[in-house]
Structures are given as structure tokens and as C-alpha cells.
């Protein structure tokens, strides 16, 4: 049995991974919940967020706030791109077969992935941690970088903010209504198309932000898009496609299974993740906290 401080450190690293995944997967889940589309390009938005953040830091230099400006600038840029793609292309595919929608998002993966390669090359890139969060905290014999702590706190903060927006604001009510019955909502005079664009923009923003914030911890490389999208799929499937707290729970489970799986069964950790996903789909296709689709 490994000692407790090690277990503690391991669970914190799992928690950090979970909060990142939550950030990304919540966007994916939002799009599925409202638009009923699995967006393969969501991983690509995440990758573009990472590259854009890198690019903005290159332009700004390493000032005290340049990382934060870069992170939000990158997320905003990706959100804009998401909005354009939805407004001008994706909107024409609503009501067509699911396969076409799936393949369209996959086409975006191919095109945007290569565009990123053309702009930034295939060399891996990285950013250093923002000033003020470079140190580490010693807690119960484990060393936790401040940046990880920041991410661990940011995840729940975004989750709460999100939940509040969905429950208490007018736009949030519309989004929930659109997820339940888009025709009725349209008949009641709500501009459903604009709402969909808004949801896509918001989801892309979350994906881009996740990508931008992960840059101090993981290298920015081509291929990070197809890797993360599978992880995000697992998270939303376990939690329940379209369910907000389900995504949160799914991310927590994923993070812990992965970080302890690597510890105890290094060779079966990826396997166990997908096995968990398959098991959830078999037993409760709508996920742990989701509701069955009508």
C-alpha cells in the first residue's frame, strides 16, 4: 500500500485532470443537450485555443497579465470561429440525417487540424505558468503546484456560474427550453436559430478556454484534438449526454480512474476507461445523471 501523502497527491492530480476535462466536456455536453449533435470539432476548438493562447503570448511578451489576456483572447477568438461555423455552415444541416451532422463536424476536425499545422508547424510548443502561480504548496507531504490548485478551484467556480446562468437567467431558461422542445419554443416567438448560435459560441468558448489554460501543463502538439475529444466523449457519456452535473461527475470519475488506474494497473488504465464508458452505455445509455431522450 503506498503511503497516504502519495495517494493524496495522486488524487489531486486526478482532480486537476478532471477539472480540465470538465471545462472541455461541458461545452460538448451543452451542444449535445440543446442541438442533439455530437460535435467532433470540439476537440479542435480546444487545440485552437491552445495554439491561439501561445500565439498571443508571443505577441505580448511575458508581462504579468499577458497569460490571462492570451487565455481569454484565445477563448474569445475560438468562440467567434465557432459562431461563424455554426451560422454559415452547420445551420444548414439541422433536420438532416445525424450521419451528415457527425461527418460535418469530422470534416472540421480534418480541415482545421491542417490549418493549425500550416500556421504553427508540427514542432511542439509550450507556455510557462503565469507569474504569481509558479510556486507550489506543500500539503500533507505532497507538493501541489499553485497552478493546479487554481484549476481545481476554477472548475467548480465555472460549474456554479454555469448552473446559476442556466437556472436563473432568461437566456438560461431558453436554453433549457430548447433542449426540451425546440418547435414549441420557436412557436412561442423565441429566435431559436440565434439561440443555437449562442449556444455554439458559448460551448466553443469553453473548449477554447480549456485549451488555453492547459498550455502551462501539457505540450501543444498536433493531434491533441483527436486525443482530447475521445476523453471528453467518455466523460459526457458516463455523466449523461446533455446533463450538466452529470458532466461534472463524469469528469471526476474519469480523473480518478485514470490517475489511480495508471498507478495500480498501468496497462489497463485506458482500457478501463473505455470499458466504463461501454458499461454505462449498456446499463444506462443516458448516463449516470442524464435523462432518457424522448
Amino acid at each position, binding site marked *: 500500500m503506498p503511503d497516504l501523502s502519495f495517494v493524496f497527491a495522486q488524487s489531486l492530480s486526478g482532480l486537476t485532470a478532471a477539472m480540465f476535462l470538465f471545462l472541455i466536456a461541458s461545452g460538448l455536453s451543452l451542444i449535445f443537450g440543446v442541438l*442533439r449533435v*455530437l460535435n467532433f470539432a470540439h476537440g479542435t476548438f480546444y487545440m485552437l485555443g491552445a495554439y491561439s493562447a501561445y500565439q498571443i503570448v508571443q505577441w505580448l511578451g511575458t508581462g504579468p497579465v499577458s497569460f490571462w489576456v492570451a487565455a481569454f483572447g484565445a477563448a474569445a477568438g475560438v468562440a467567434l470561429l465557432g459562431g461563424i461555423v455554426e451560422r454559415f455552415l452547420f445551420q444548414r444541416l439541422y433536420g438532416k440525417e445525424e450521419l451528415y451532422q*457527425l*461527418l460535418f463536424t469530422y470534416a472540421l476536425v480534418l480541415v482545421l487540424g491542417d490549418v493549425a499545422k500550416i500556421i504553427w508547424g508540427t514542432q511542439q510548443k509550450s507556455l510557462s505558468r503565469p507569474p504569481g502561480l509558479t510556486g507550489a504548496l506543500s500539503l500533507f507531504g505532497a507538493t501541489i503546484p499553485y497552478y493546479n490548485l487554481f484549476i481545481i478551484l476554477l472548475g467548480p467556480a465555472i460549474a456554479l456560474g454555469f448552473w446559476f446562468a442556466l437556472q436563473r437567467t432568461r437566456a438560461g431558461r431558453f436554453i433549457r427550453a430548447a433542449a426540451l422542445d425546440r418547435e414549441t419554443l420557436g412557436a412561442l416567438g423565441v429566435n431559436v436559430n440565434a439561440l443555437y448560435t449562442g449556444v455554439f459560441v458559448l460551448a466553443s468558448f469553453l473548449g477554447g478556454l480549456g485549451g488555453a489554460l492547459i498550455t502551462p501543463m501539457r505540450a501543444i502538439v498536433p493531434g491533441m484534438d483527436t486525443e482530447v475529444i475521445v476523453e471528453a466523449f467518455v466523460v459526457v457519456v458516463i455523466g449523461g449526454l446533455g446533463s450538466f452535473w452529470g458532466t461534472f461527475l463524469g469528469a471526476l470519475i474519469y480523473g480518478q480512474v485514470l490517475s489511480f488506474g495508471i498507478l495500480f494497473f498501468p496497462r489497463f488504465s485506458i482500457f478501463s476507461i*473505455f470499458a466504463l464508458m461501454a458499461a454505462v*452505455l449498456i446499463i444506462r445509455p443516458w448516463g449516470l445523471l442524464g435523462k432518457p431522450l424522448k
Partner: protein
Amino acid sequence: MKTLSRVPWALVVLVAAFFVPAAGSRYYTFLANDVVIWALFATSLNLLVGYTGLVSFGHAAYFGIGAYTTGILMKKLGVPFLLAFPAAGVAAALFALVFGFFCVRLTRIYFAMLTLAFAQIVWAICFKWNEVTGGEQGMPEIPYPAFDWLELVAAWLPFVGGYRTSEHFYFLTLVLVAGCLWLLRRVVGSPFGRMLTTIRENPERAEFIGVNVRRYELAAFVVAGAFAGLAGGLFGIFNRGVFPDFAYWTKSSEVLIMTLLGGMGTFIGPALGALVLIWLNQQIVSYTQYWPLILGTILIVLLFVFPGGIAGALESAARRFRRRRQVA
């Protein structure tokens, strides 16, 4: 017009394909071999997506299982091709039976997700189980089938001798794939195949007239898996090695694109898609490394402009042509 449709086109194409090594270079034989194997893989997927209306996002799993089965049997256990090839189909069919049992219970998007999850499980196992699958490095140097007997035949028949092993393998692939496609054609045309189309069009009504929809879907899943496995078995040998990315989710989407490009729901569509896509790939790769960009653009144009794929576009063009002739 009538005389044109009476020509046995499948036979003509098959015979023409036999002359590729003699007429073209080694490169063209290589390309033709690639096309033929992918044509089988894509056609097997079409049975699910095009004919039954089940969108599988994990069809590469059965391709990978077939490739590993033949590869392991031939390389590690020295089993002859004659046994190792059908074994690929049997192994893939068995896995398809188990996975499919769960998948057909789910509807639409969840079906796609579960097929994806199972494919990723297969990929993860191939990726990590070093002792059996060679892990991340894969399994290089799968031997060619033994062609000694061909030399004996060559003494009796003209045109058979004097070819390289890779060309012998191409001939073997042609014969086997032609046989598989013929079988699949029979399946599609049979009452069973018609019932699959009924299920695609209206599963509720099929249920009402007393069809066990799930059982039919499962059967289609197993047949499609088996033929994908056979394609995989051939591909491992052709590729001179079997690698985990055979079962990765991006492979599943590649074959889906092929099927869509050629035209779903038409029998020759996917084979046409395989031909066009592989040929395009070879042409474009010599100019630029950004093949995915081109492929993605093709896919977007296809989705917005020609959702019926090549076969669909040809059919509507032919219909227009015929109508004009009638008017004139």
C-alpha cells in the same frame, strides 16, 4: 442504352483488374490492391449504414480484429493462409456478435457511441497487450501466403508464372474480394437484405408486421463485421504489418467517408468511393502533405452539394439524360 446495361460490368471490371500488373507498373498494382481491400471494407460498412440505417462509428474494430487474427496466426503460429484468412472473418464475426448484442439495443446516437466505445476498447487492447499484439509498435513483417503451388500451376497454364510475390498476392486478393462482394450482393438481394432496407425505412412498421428488428439488425452487424474482418486480414498482409491504429476511431471515420463519397445505399457506391479516395490521395500526397485538409474540404462539398455521393450523382445525371431523350 439497353445494350449497355446488359453488359456484365462486374465481370468486365474483374477481368480488367487482372491485367493491372501486366499493363501497369508495380506502383499501380500496389494501388489497385489497396483499392480492392478498402472496397470490401467500405462495402461491408454499407450493409450497416446504407442498407440497415445503423450508423456505426466503430467499424474499424472488426477490420483491426481481422488483421490481428490473420497476422498473429500466420506470423506467430505459422498457420497457413488458407486457414488464417477465414479465421479473420470468424473472429471478427464473434466479436461483432458480442458487441452487436449490446449495440442494437440502443437507438441512433447511442448506437453510434457504443460502437465507438467498443472500437476504442479493441484499440486499447491492441495498443497495450504487448505479448500478443506487439503493443504500440504493432506487428511488422506478416508473411505472404505460400505461393509455391502457383509455380506448379504455371507449368500448365499461361499468364500465371513470372510474377512477383506481391503480384501473386494481388491476384489472390482479387479472387477473394470478388467472391466476398458476390456474397454480399447475394445478401443484399435476398429477402433478408430486403428486410434490412424495410427496417431502415421504417423500423416501427417492420416491428408491427412481426419482424424481430433487433435480431435482424444483429445479423446485419455480424455479417458486416465478418466481411470487415476478412478485409482486415488481407490488409495486414498487404500492408506488411498490423498496427493498433487499424482499430482507432479515425479509421472508422475514414471508411465512413469512403462509403458516403461513393454513395450510401447503392451496392457499388462504396467500392467507387474507395477507388476515388485512394487515387486522389496518391495524386495529392505527391503535391502536398495536407491531405486531411483536402479530404475535409471534399467531405464538406459532398455533404452540402452531393449528399448522394458519386453513385447518387451519376444516377440523377443518367435519369436527367434519359428524360431528355424521351422528350426529344
